């Protein structure tokens, strides 16, 4: 999540002499300066004509020479004049063909110039002629643009959703304050109001923490920066997450079971792993009926991947929500009688972390009851 895309080069930075150290930094302002497009330009049509003309001139000279050597000078003159005429006609045809062949390029250049955040179309207008040689380029360009458009849309949606969530949190805070000031209140009412304000602040803080965390994970992933982490014991991170969720589980009368026959060392930040498990377990506990159990299982038998499974015995996830469950700000249907307090970022964070470590995360409804989240993380053996 980078909210500052394409920042303009600031005036002072642009005036400063270029510092070679700066150039090695990622995302330095220098990177956004327009680069010289090409070293040297050449015209295809001019080159083709020059080559064709040279070949033809050589051929004609040969013919004239042959005519002059083997016959008489008069014949050589006729051959020469006729040859020049034929060559002229042929050259005109060559020029025309080359121009026509290159015409779609000009159209494509115009279309490329029109591409913007509002207009992503690069495909040439239907019915127009297109050189077969250009088709792969156009297709590649079009595919790249489609991908860019998708990610641009996702980015825009995310910014919009993030703004909505932040503004809602501020709206809650503000409305609590204004409600409190709406009329004179008793000491007790003010106390309750202040406690509610503290809760609202905690909520806003939670939202900010999660959003920043998600942004950091994605930035690390995009930059390909994997901090040098010492190996960490997988099962111990699961145990840490379970002990962290202990209080909530007890409050909701849900048991937490961990099943792990063996453990393994993974090259990962223990905080990251613990965060994935905590989010999955918290989700499972919240959707579990009282008296049930949430099961966590670590399986190392599946080849190069370590498999971690979290199962609950709640109502499962509605089929319509399954494909979107890892999207940011996607909130599931809250169970009846329980207010939804989440932001829809927990599972998005799990997915971002699993992706960052080269793993996968999947969800499915269990045939009998409940949902199952499965995380596969690659085991790197040195």
């Amino acid at each position, binding site marked *: 999540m980078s909210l500052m895309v394409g920042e303009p080069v600031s005036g002072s930075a642009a005036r400063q002499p270029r510092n070679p150290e700066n150039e090695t930094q990622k995302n330095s302002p220098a990177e956004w300066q327009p680069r010289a497009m090409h070293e040297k330009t050449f015209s295809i049509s001019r080159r083709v004509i020059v080559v064709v003309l040279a070949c033809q001139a050589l051929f004609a000279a040969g013919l004239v020479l042959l005519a002059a050597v083997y016959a008489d000078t008069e014949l050589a003159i006729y051959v020469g004049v006729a040859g020049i005429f034929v060559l002229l006609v042929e050259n005109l045809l060559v020029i025309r063909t080359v121009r026509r062949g290159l015409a779609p390029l000009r159209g494509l250049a115009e279309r490329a110039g029109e591409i913007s955040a509002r207009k992503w179309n690069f495909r040439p207008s239907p019915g127009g002629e297109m050189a077969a040689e250009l088709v792969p380029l156009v297709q590649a360009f079009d595919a790249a643009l489609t991908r860019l458009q998708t990610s641009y849309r996702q980015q825009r949606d995310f910014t*919009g*959703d993030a*703004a*909505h*969530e*932040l*503004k*809602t949190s*501020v*709206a*809650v*805070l*503000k*409305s*609590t304050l*204004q*409600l409190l000031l*709406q*009329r004179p209140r008793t000491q007790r009412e003010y106390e309750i109001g202040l406690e*509610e304000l503290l*809760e*609202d602040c905690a*909520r806003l803080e939670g939202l900010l923490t999660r959003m920043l965390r998600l942004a950091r994970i994605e930035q690390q992933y995009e930059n390909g920066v994997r901090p040098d982490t010492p190996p960490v014991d997988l099962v111990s991170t699961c145990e840490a997450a379970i002990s962290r969720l202990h209080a909530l589980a007890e409050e909701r009368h849900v048991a937490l079971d961990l099943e792990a026959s063996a453990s393994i060392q993974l090259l990962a930040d223990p905080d990251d792993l613990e965060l994935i498990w905590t989010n999955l377990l918290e989700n499972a506990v919240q959707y579990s009926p009282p008296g049930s159990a949430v099961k966590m299982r670590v399986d190392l038998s599946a080849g190069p991947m370590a498999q971690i499974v979290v199962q609950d015995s709640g109502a499962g996830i509605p089929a319509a929500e399954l494909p979107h469950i890892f999207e940011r700000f996607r*909130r599931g*249907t*809250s169970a009846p009688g329980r*207010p*939804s*307090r989440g932001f829809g970022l927990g599972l998005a964070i799990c997915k971002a972390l699993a992706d960052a470590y080269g793993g996968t995360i999947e969800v499915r409804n269990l045939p009998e009851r409940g949902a199952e989240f499965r995380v596969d993380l690659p085991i790197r053996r040195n």
Partner: protein
Amino acid sequence: MRVLLVEDERRLADNIARSFRENSGYAVDIAVDGAQGFYLSESNAYDLIVLDMLLPKLDGHTFLVRYRQNGHVTPVLVLSGRDDKESVVRMLNSGADDYLSKPFDLPELLARSKALIRRGTGQRAPVISMADLQMDTVERTVRRGQHEIALAPMEYRVLEYLAHRPRAVVSKTELLEHLYDYNWEKFSNVIEVYISGLRRKIDDPNRVKLIHTVRGHGYVLRPGAGVEAISAGR
């Protein structure tokens, strides 16, 4: 007046509802997702709908489009965290009557809501007058001539509803539906109590009677001339 509030952020919904009840004496139903909100909007009579735009199950825009397609004319005030012009225009073009972007001011929300309710019933002025009765819907005060009349909160709400529909016959069920939230059936016997209280305070000391019973149909607020024939319920 009865308001439907469709807002998935429970804390915000509770605050708005409390504010409506405290400040304006409105009955408020809360829906925490679009589908529940739509069900309520179809099955109850509301004077105003306050609608969040980003909702689970059924988003605010689809809600609005379907609601208007079904022919409802209740004013809708949209709340949203997205204040880009496109969304505002889209919501207004889909049948929203007003738009407030989050974080909004509660007093502004209340004032806009009152204005929308007034407009929805054809009233423009915040002070409703009939004969020498003056009802200030902002200050929530009632005067008859020079005398300020102290009304109980529910009496005020009954009178406010009648005053927004002057000369129209309002049934008891309609009053109940618009003055209470979804529990209104429980209160079916109390309307007569409030009406008689209002008569005692507003009409009894005065020669021109304003509140009349139309037997078998309901109540009507209008100046007394020539209404004795239908006010047989007294």
